[in-house]
């Protein structure tokens, strides 16, 4: 409609006249930061400085003893000490390594299981409800079983992580297979894809928007399970650092490890999953959801 009035066309309303989109749509120059972003950053700086200020003030007034309520600077000291003697860095490396292995296995197995359950009547009606009910079990409950089966080993930790996130991935994959528009599989089959290639080139990419939230949830659940498991197993890792802080009655160390765990979780969510969601949205032309 807009084409008749000579207005510049937006991609979704373009008529059939071949207008080179890539050229027409490109903004002349992206400013360094948008006004909205600038305002958001401003708000955040104000809020977190105020929070820190209140914390410092309360600590300064000695409302509670310092060994229960340490000041921000002593937490910062503890953080710095942990980084300087490498104990925190090693803990981060060990924890992330476990997480990557456990999560990787979960994603592969979870996807296979999800596809199998969605594609098979028998499995759907038997394993399907089992998956949902198993997910109501907190993954910490697998710890005693894991210790009895595997002893205090890496395997036991990986097992707990696996049980923590595989169900999310499986259920998401199963849902994705069901929600994915059927037309994509029909078009794929019609164009000569079948078997594994149909799965790899059509079903998997077609279900991605539906499983991305499951992958995210799987990571979050797996992350919680891992830290919990590490707190019980007394091997290297962030969870163990946390318990060590408790054993030494060192509140500053406890808080600094907690901050580390929060920061890592945030960074992964922000860097990995937000990037993935953004990429999907621009490629598919979906409206931004969050």
């Amino acid at each position, binding site marked *: 409609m807009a084409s008749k009035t000579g207005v510049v066309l937006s991609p979704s309303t*373009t008529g*059939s006249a071949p207008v080179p*989109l890539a050229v027409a749509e490109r903004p002349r120059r992206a400013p360094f930061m948008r006004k909205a972003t600038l305002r958001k950053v401003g708000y955040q700086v104000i809020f977190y400085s105020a929070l820190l200020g209140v914390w410092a003030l309360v600590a300064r007034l000695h409302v509670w003893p310092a060994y229960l309520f340490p000041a921000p600077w002593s937490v910062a000291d503890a953080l710095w000490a942990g980084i300087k003697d490498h104990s925190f860095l090693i803990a981060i490396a060990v924890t992330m390594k476990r997480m990557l292995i456990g999560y990787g296995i979960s994603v592969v197995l979870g996807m296979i299981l999800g596809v199998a359950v969605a594609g098979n009547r028998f499995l759907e009606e038997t394993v399907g409800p089992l998956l949902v009910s198993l997910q109501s079990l907190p993954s910490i409950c697998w710890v005693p079983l894991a210790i009895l089966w595997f002893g205090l080993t890496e395997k036991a930790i990986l097992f707990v992580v696996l049980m923590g996130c595989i169900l999310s991935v499986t259920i998401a994959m199963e849902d994705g297979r069901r929600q994915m528009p059927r037309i994509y599989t029909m078009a794929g089959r019609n*164009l*000569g894809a079948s078997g594994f290639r149909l799965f790899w*080139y059509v079903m998997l990419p077609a279900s991605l928007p539906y499983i991305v939230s499951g992958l995210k949830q799987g990571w979050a659940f797996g992350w919680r399970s891992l830290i919990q498991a590490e707190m019980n197993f007394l091997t290297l890792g962030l969870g163990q650092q946390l318990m060590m802080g408790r054993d030494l009655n060192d509140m500053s160390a406890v808080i600094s490890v907690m901050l580390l765990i929060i920061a890592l979780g945030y960074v992964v969510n922000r860097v990995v999953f937000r990037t993935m969601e953004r990429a999907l949205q621009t490629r*598919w*032309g979906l409206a931004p959801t969050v």
Partner: protein
Amino acid sequence: MRAQSQISNSLAERFVDQRKPAHGVAFSRPAILSFRQASGIPKVRLEDVSLSYRTDNGSRLLALDRINLQVRAGEFLCIVGPSGCGKSTLLHLIAALQRPTSGTIQVDDKEVVGAGTDRILIFQEHGLFPWLTVGQNVEFGMKMKGLPRAERKEKTRYYLRLVHLLQFENSRPHQLSGGMRQRVALARALATEPDVLLMDEPFAALDAQTRDMLHDELEKIWAETGRTIIFVTHNVREAVRLGDRVALMSFRPGRVKQEFVVDLPRPRHLEEVEVARTAREILDSLREEINKSLEAEYAAEGSHGL
């Protein structure tokens, strides 16, 4: 009328010799194309094809009832019918995305067993893969066929040029308009070089101007490539505009109620009196079926209301 057709035929003959060989060169549009006559060789043959399925309340519904249909090689057959008459389902059966309950479907005298790239289906909408670029979409069928990369790239560009979308090779489907997307779908279908094109109301969701233009383009491509086309639509005028023959389907159970040979000279236009007159004739017969389908719809609504 006869005189008119002779004139256009002789014109067409004159243009035949002047046409350049259709190789990778940009297509210049000749004033009037030569339209080959469909040969007498049957390409697709449906014999007593029936389809029934169980509905949610347990009763069996006969969707298609002993369909007999022959499509000659190079023929443009249009199928019209009220919504719910099973015309889309018929295409799915020919594409072997679904199996008939009974009867046989043959292409080139061989029974159809599975989906194959000799019969490509073009959907009403959303048939393109949103995770691939326009070029990758066109390439997809050839990739599944196992063509070497260089050949795929070349053919992708060739067919995109054919539908005048070469400059959008690296765009995403969602960046294109509805009409452009359908042209990409057409290029994707043609790129696998199918013998039979199955088109399921491909232009139903488009605005009138875009549809007119795509009619011209489709007719031209059909004339140039000599493909057999089975085109499903609920728009009778569109069927008369495009088809050599129009098959009218009845409402539930779907049967071929009547067939009309459209003997008007090409290229035709939607507004032509002859097109309108032929359409009118078919429409009179179709109206009965539409009424039946509406009655069924209202009856269903009534029972839901209670």
